[in-house]
């Protein structure tokens, strides 16, 4: 293999990984932060390790307009901020309408990708227990960074307003 081609071949994976890191960092830093209530349980992924699986409790109110996820139209959740640390008011709408009328929006096609949170294997049992206890008492929340197009990135899983992996505050 010629020298330049060989260099390109071995550097390409590193370039792709670097690009992935930059993209994820930009998504986290540029997106507006929103919190959502969650409920859940804990399986594990053979390749990626332990994770907590949960459902986002959206508490949707009456839709702004009818939008079908199976249709070609892009559906969004219109987010209207209520207060800091409080989940937003959520209404279903087309992304076009949500972009014009809402404080923020979340594309519904990404919802299925937001339902797992990876945790360190060493603390898996402890964190799982902590998550389950808190979820039963509705003290768990998901912090999302959502950009203007409605694409979300998971910023943190919160228990009592703190990241789940951090030490719990005295109650």
């Amino acid at each position, binding site marked *: *293999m010629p020298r330049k081609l060989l260099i390109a071949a071995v550097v*390409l994976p590193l370039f792709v990984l670097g690009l992935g890191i930059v993209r994820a960092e930009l998504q986290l830093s540029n997106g507006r932060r929103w919190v959502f209530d969650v409920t859940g349980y804990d399986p594990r992924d053979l390749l990626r390790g332990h994770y907590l699986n949960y459902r986002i409790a959206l508490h949707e109110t009456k839709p702004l307009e009818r939008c079908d996820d199976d249709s070609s139209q892009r559906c969004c959740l219109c987010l209207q901020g209520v207060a800091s640390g409080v989940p937003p008011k959520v209404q279903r709408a087309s992304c076009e309408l949500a972009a014009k009328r809402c404080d923020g929006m979340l594309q519904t096609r990404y919802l299925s990708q937001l339902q797992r949170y990876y945790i360190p294997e*060493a603390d898996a049992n402890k964190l799982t227990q902590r998550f389950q206890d808190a979820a039963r008492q509705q003290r768990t929340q998901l912090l999302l960074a959502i950009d203007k197009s409605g694409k979300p990135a998971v910023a943190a899983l919160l228990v009592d307003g703190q990241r789940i992996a951090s030490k719990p505050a005295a109650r």
Partner: protein
Amino acid sequence: MLRVGVGAGARLTSPGYAPMNLEKKLAQWQEAGVIDADTRARIEGFEHGRQHPVLLYALGGLGALTLGTGIVSVVAANWDAIGKLQKLAADLLLGGALAAAVYWSARREQAWLSDVLAAVYYAFVLASIALLGQVYQLGAPTYQALLTWSLCTAPFMLLARSPLVAAVWLCGLVGTQGVSIDAWLDTLRKGSGGNALANNLGATLAFASTLMWLWLSRAPWLVRERPLVSDTWTRMLWGAVLAAGLAAGFLFYEHPSGSQLLSWSLGACGVVVAALHVSLPRLYPHWSAQAYAGHRLLVACIWLLLAAAAGQSHGEAAWLGAIAQVVLLGIAAFSVLALGQLRVFNLLTAAIALRVLVMYFEVFGSMLDTGLGMISGGILTLLLAWLWKRKSPELAQRLGRMGG
């Protein structure tokens, strides 16, 4: 007379077991006056120049894969002792060191070392993509991660030379393709096209991608520069063709109806089969006529089986599926025998015997029927074993002679 082929039929040149057979044969030919001492020396020199340290490659590949799996496991353990950015920086540094090592070994043409390092780097990139997913809590579909992995590692994996690494690479590529197509078909199933479109597309893509991989495995560059990779892929892909045919036999165990039935895809698959028929001599120029006939018949029978089992609604017909599987195994056995691959022929003969025995359990119900079935099945198996022992070398020779 001297049939020294390449590819799946290259018994004399296949690195795994060629040297002993070749030297023995050459001695016999010289003794019989078929070749002189000079010719023998030239052939030996040529073949020894093509030898590869198979054990060294196998151990290297195994070691590399173990190391790679270890890296994946460490990542899966989701070590949390250091911060996010430090973790990713350490990952990229290790990746950089591996990339430099692959470059260094490839530039110095240290084939074994670059093979091992490429395999480790291959696993490392997958582990790093998984790490990225962990660190940033990415919930993207699996096919996206696999596609990224396969596309960005393909250029340096072309450095691979050993059969084991080639096999793992092919599994990675085909696995990525399968998962991606499945995700796409899933989207189609949920959309307006529904099950019928997805099933037809799935069958067509399965046939078409088999042809594509068979073509790729015989690409001139691969055959010339990476003969072991080409040979390994060829064997694996024909094995996959047979496995797909056997799986199609199980369609007779189902009751397909409505949108499960295949329609236009049977025509499309027929075109793919015809294309494969036409291209066999180009792909494998050294095969005998019997080997072409066997492989063509195998592919045609798989298509017929698919058309019969999934082209129209029918009740459960397990016996038909079982017979079809035995027929396919028989054709495959004939094909490999025509290539002189006695070991594979023996394996397939054993598979036929086993399938016949299992068939008796499936088809018969009462104790008496099953007992009688097993007695006749046992006799048939013993007869098969006798035929295999007595006739297969002779048949292989005859087929070889007929192939010219």
